[in-house]
């Protein structure tokens, strides 16, 4: 199949699913997303020599993606809506479909053209385009009346954490199943230093640094006992730490310490127990107070934290320390023979990974304003690991993309899909189907299914390391063939 059409179809699937499930004005946004993805994928398949070639390529891929998006809009408008008794004005549906198509084409052209620029500019341009999209999002959100802002902010918190986890798992190759512990530590540090709990109210802008530092310190403390461990064994120990931290938070509400008969602390409430800490102070900037009812400042605050983090993570990646992490991941023995101090390098990986989780925790605490031990469980660690692996281990773009897809699937797409299917079931005339509560019963299953399918389709992650991708697909047919014969032999 033509690579442009294939890229268009892949991008189009996103557009189709979004417009199909969510309906309404989101079609425009779905078109932009579909076009951008299609254009990026197409440009990855073939070399784009000039802006002109980029525009051509982007337009084709974008229009294919747009056609699928429009298809989604039409199915939703003309087939599903009548079934669930939502009145649909044919001309409105038609305009939405056309809008999705046009937006996909425009996004395809813009991103294709950028990829056609000469080498340093095209990277910068792509970054700038995605940056502008991120900055423009809150306005698109209100313009298209999407009301997703309160969902988008937690998504970004998770992405910030995934970036930190990527240092530990992707760069240093240390499989960490208890990463949520550092998120908890960042959030609890914020809770203790900026709330009526201890009567301390330090400003957010100072607390966030302390939270990061405390998280880093715990990164070292929890990392130290795991030093001789690797792979599966390390995973099990970190899993344990991940469980210990929330349980400790749950139980440290009545601390009594006495040494040799001298009571140092009696019935001291450190963490607020199962009730947690509430309310945590919110940030304010130059007299402007952040309010929960106003999501836009929060959005830009977390976006800023992410950009800040990426900036420093990239510096770490391309440094003596970053190379030491990679070397340690590839071969510990050879790394130590090349003069790398394994203890120091590992602890720094844990510490730096925890730092960014500490930022995320501090933000989360202030944003939600009430933290309880239940928010920092194993599921958080697992989802984060999924985001990192799905996106492509060790690749920042991949981690962000993987994070966006998993988080949006979990928070927006699957619940809405649940609504739609539930509506269809309720309106069907079959009694058995009406009994099914699709929304609660199937959501987790669909989420798992999404993960399984994505890992089968793209085991190397969505945006793998450029070099690794080339090498995985260079002999694609040969390996696929080998694998096939391998399984044939087993069946025979």
């Amino acid at each position, binding site marked *: 199949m033509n690579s442009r059409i294939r890229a268009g179809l892949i991008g189009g699937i996103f557009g189709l699913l979004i417009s199909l499930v969510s309906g309404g004005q989101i079609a425009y946004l779905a078109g932009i997303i579909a076009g951008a993805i299609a254009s990026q994928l197409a440009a990855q398949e073939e070399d784009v020599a000039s802006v002109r070639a980029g525009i051509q390529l982007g337009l084709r891929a974008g229009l294919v993606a747009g056609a699928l998006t429009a298809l989604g809009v039409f199915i939703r408008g003309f087939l599903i809506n009548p079934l669930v008794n939502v009145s649909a004005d044919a001309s409105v549906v038609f305009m939405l479909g056309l809008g999705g198509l046009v937006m996909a084409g425009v996004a395809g052209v813009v991103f294709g053209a950028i990829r056609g620029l000469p080498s340093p500019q095209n990277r910068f341009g792509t970054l700038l385009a995605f940056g502008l999209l991120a900055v423009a999002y809150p306005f698109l959100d209100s313009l298209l009346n999407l009301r997703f802002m309160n969902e988008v902010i937690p998504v970004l918190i998770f992405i910030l954490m995934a970036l930190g986890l990527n240092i530990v798992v992707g760069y240093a190759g240390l499989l960490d199943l208890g990463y949520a512990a550092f998120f908890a530590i960042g959030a609890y540090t914020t809770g203790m230093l900026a709330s009526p709990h201890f009567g301390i109210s330090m400003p957010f802008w100072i607390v966030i640094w302390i939270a990061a530092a405390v998280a880093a310190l715990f990164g070292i403390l929890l990392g130290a006992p795991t030093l001789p461990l690797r792979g599966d064994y390390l995973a099990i120990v970190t899993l344990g730490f991940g469980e210990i931290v929330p349980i400790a938070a749950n139980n440290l509400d009545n601390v009594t310490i006495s040494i040799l008969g001298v009571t140092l602390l009696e019935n001291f409430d450190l963490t607020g127990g199962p009730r947690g800490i509430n309310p945590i102070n919110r940030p304010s900037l130059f007299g402007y107070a952040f309010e929960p009812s106003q999501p836009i400042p929060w959005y830009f605050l977390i976006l800023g934290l992410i950009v800040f983090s990426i900036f420093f993570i990239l510096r770490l990646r391309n440094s*003596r*320390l970053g190379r030491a992490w990679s070397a340690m991941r590839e071969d510990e023995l050879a790394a130590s023979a090349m003069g790398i101090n394994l203890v120091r390098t590992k602890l720094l990986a844990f510490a730096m990974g925890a730092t960014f989780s500490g930022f995320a925790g501090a933000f989360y605490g202030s944003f939600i304003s009430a933290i309880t031990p239940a928010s920092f469980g194993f599921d958080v660690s697992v989802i984060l690991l999924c985001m990192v692996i799905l996106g492509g281990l060790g690749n920042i773009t991949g981690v962000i993309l993987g994070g966006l897809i998993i988080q949006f699937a979990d928070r927006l797409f699957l619940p809405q899909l649940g609504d739609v299917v539930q509506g269809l079931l309720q309106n069907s005339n079959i009694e058995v189907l009406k009994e099914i509560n699709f929304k609660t019963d199937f959501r987790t299953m669909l989420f798992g299914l999404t993960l399984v399918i994505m890992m089968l389709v793209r085991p190397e992650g969505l945006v793998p390391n450029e070099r690794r991708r080339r090498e995985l697909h260079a002999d694609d047919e040969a390996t696929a063939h080998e694998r096939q014969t391998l399984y044939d032999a087993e069946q025979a």
Partner: protein
Amino acid sequence: MSDKLLDAQGITKQFGGLTAVNSVDFSIERRSISSLIGPNGAGKTTFFNMITGLYTPTSGKVLFDGQEITGTKPHLVTALGIGRTFQNIRLFAQMTALENVLVGRHSRLHAGLIGTLLRLRKVREEEVAARTHALDLLEYVGLGRRRADELSKNLPYGDQRRLEIARALATEPKLLLLDEPTAGMNPNETGELTKLIRRVRDDRGVTILLIEHDMKVVMDISEKVTVLDHGAKIAEGLPELVRADEQVIEAYLGRGAAAHGKGGRMPTAA
């Protein structure tokens, strides 16, 4: 300073009941090329691992450059000036050739966490210098700059061996330990690599100790040959003398074969 760069005194390594290396005395002169030979399982690699700090000797001590290094951690041994390659190539597979060599520079660079995060001028300059140095090394071992950005696992076998040497040289060793550097190479490649090894000593003044099975290489470049068998030193001296040693031939070919002196590895070298 003594003339001995490395001086191992009665080092022994036991794994449980097995004595892999048994009370071996061994020394290397500065700027020399020496070989360590012996049948498979003779304890050669174990000996290397004790010198480089991967194993701590059960007894005995190792002096390097007049300083005791027995039981010193591998990364500190490297910093003191012992570089090595591995018997079965241990490059960092998912890193480029250039990155592999840059990892070798690790102990000669000083960038810390703060300097890296703030990208201080000192750190930037150090990084530029390290890159130049690494590229020069790639050129020196005959890989050339155009392969610099290739993943090390995608390099041809012979180039991987060369890259391992470049990476070890990046640590600025006084003593370079090569564990079977020509294993798996054809005669042509072996000849080229032998030249490179000699060049490293002549140009850079690096003392070289190699474990080698190819007797042609051993006889060609070694100034001294030491033979290990069952963990013990059974012969040592000039290559020609060692080759003629009855005990050595016996160790390689088994009892009785010494009388015939034909077939097997030793004679092919002649």
